[in-house]
């Protein structure tokens, strides 16, 4: 099993107000079994040994479920490959001698904190605006499984709920639009009876917050669906569009 020599071109930015620039780093002895993040760990280890500032990047579970890792690698969110996050991207996807461009998510609503780390709290604020179900927790809980739900609806709601909020949709979208994220969060409740009582309020509030955060508009290019690590479908955006029309027209005030 051979090792690879790579050249990384990485966005370095010391803080939110720094202008930032692409910096070249050679990396040797890269195993094809490493994940992309492990490769960055190796580079950072070397930088620290040499007394340099290590490259800041987000990561947590490293098993594709937390949504922390980001990175725009060689022009694509989470790099080449489909249905994966950056921690699930392995170096066997690259060849010896490759030049790899690594940039942070780019969106006005996702300001750079440092290097490759961006502030994704805009997503949290959209969630807080309506991405929940108000449940009575005073001891008289109803068994959720006692409510009949058509299998297709349950499956579709689950598909929407697999969104990990990584922001690849925004990063990929030519308009920096957050429609796929918001649509997934709206759909996972809209499809279930437990979500219906607050459905109208939810979609209006979440879309309003999305617009406030400064995300772009949807051109239906479909890029988000392709790059989404969880394969969230554009059908959810259409559902949000329907929910929004219905809610706008029928809301009491």
């Amino acid at each position, binding site marked *: 099993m051979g090792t690879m020599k790579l050249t990384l071109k990485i966005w370095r930015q010391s803080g939110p107000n720094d202008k930032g620039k692409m910096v070249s780093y050679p990396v040797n002895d890269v195993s094809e079994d490493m994940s992309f993040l492990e490769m960055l760990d190796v580079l950072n280890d070397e930088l620290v040994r040499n007394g340099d500032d290590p490259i800041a990047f987000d990561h947590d579970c490293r098993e594709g479920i937390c949504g922390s890792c980001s990175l725009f690698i*060689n022009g694509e969110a989470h790099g080449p490959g489909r249905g994966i996050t950056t921690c699930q991207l392995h170096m066997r996807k690259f060849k010896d001698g490759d030049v790899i461009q690594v940039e942070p998510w780019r969106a006005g609503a996702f300001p750079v904190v440092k290097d490759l780390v961006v502030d994704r709290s805009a997503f949290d604020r959209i969630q807080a605006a309506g991405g929940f179900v108000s449940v009575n927790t005073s001891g008289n809980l109803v068994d959720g499984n006692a409510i009949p739900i058509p299998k297709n609806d349950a499956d579709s709601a689950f598909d929407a709920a697999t969104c990990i909020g990584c922001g690849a949709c925004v990063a990929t979208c030519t308009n920096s639009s957050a429609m796929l994220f918001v649509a997934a969060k709206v759909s996972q409740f809209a499809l279930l009876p437990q979500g219906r009582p607050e459905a109208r309020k939810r979609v209006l509030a979440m879309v309003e917050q999305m617009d406030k955060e400064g995300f*772009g508009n949807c051109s239906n290019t479909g890029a988000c669906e392709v790059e989404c690590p969880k394969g969230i479908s554009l059908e959810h955006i*259409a559902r949000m569009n329907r929910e929004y029309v219905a809610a706008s027209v029928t809301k009491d005030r």
Partner: protein
Amino acid sequence: MARSALLGSSLAKKYWMALTGLFLCIFLIAHLAGNLQLLDMSPDGQLKFNAYAKFMTTFPLVKVVSYLLYASILFHAFDGILLALQNRKARPVRYHYEKAGANSTWYSRQMALLGTLVLVFLVIHMKGFWYEMHWGDLGLDADGNKDLYTLVAAAFSQPWYVAIYVVSMAVLAFHLLHGFASAFQSLGLNHPRYTPLIKNVGVFFAVVVPVFFALIPVWMFINA
């Protein structure tokens, strides 16, 4: 809130974009059906076309629809510019390297540019024929109708004028190739059973309509 939601929100702008866009698609069919009469270049065909042009500019119901059409064109263009400006603002720092072709078609990402080119064509097109028909100094044909046919034939005897039309129809084709199906998605009309059909109809529409439109100047140039 409901009021502003249906006018100002990001989703509402898309609804209006879709509704006006689909209305303009319907117009394209009517406009094409009428103007295919230009392919009949016999003296009798010329008189028929001029009579048709008179009907289209004077019949009250057509006039009402035409005002709706002008409003739709202006709104579609204005709303589109507004959306494009907001979208640019949403990404203040661009990527150094972007492999956008890996996940979307170029024409779906360039709707604003394609739309602007179509608008430029519309200005040329309406100045050339629509303005002349309404306020220009056209001669009368044997039936006493304004002789729009002769004006069109003269315009399409110039190679560069024909070229502008053919290129513009190619631009329109790409605009429709994304726009037709996209309008349905914006309106929330996405269904596993019907969306494949909508997409196929969209491709058919985007190819057939511009090709027939482009055929008119080419035909008139060849047979002049």
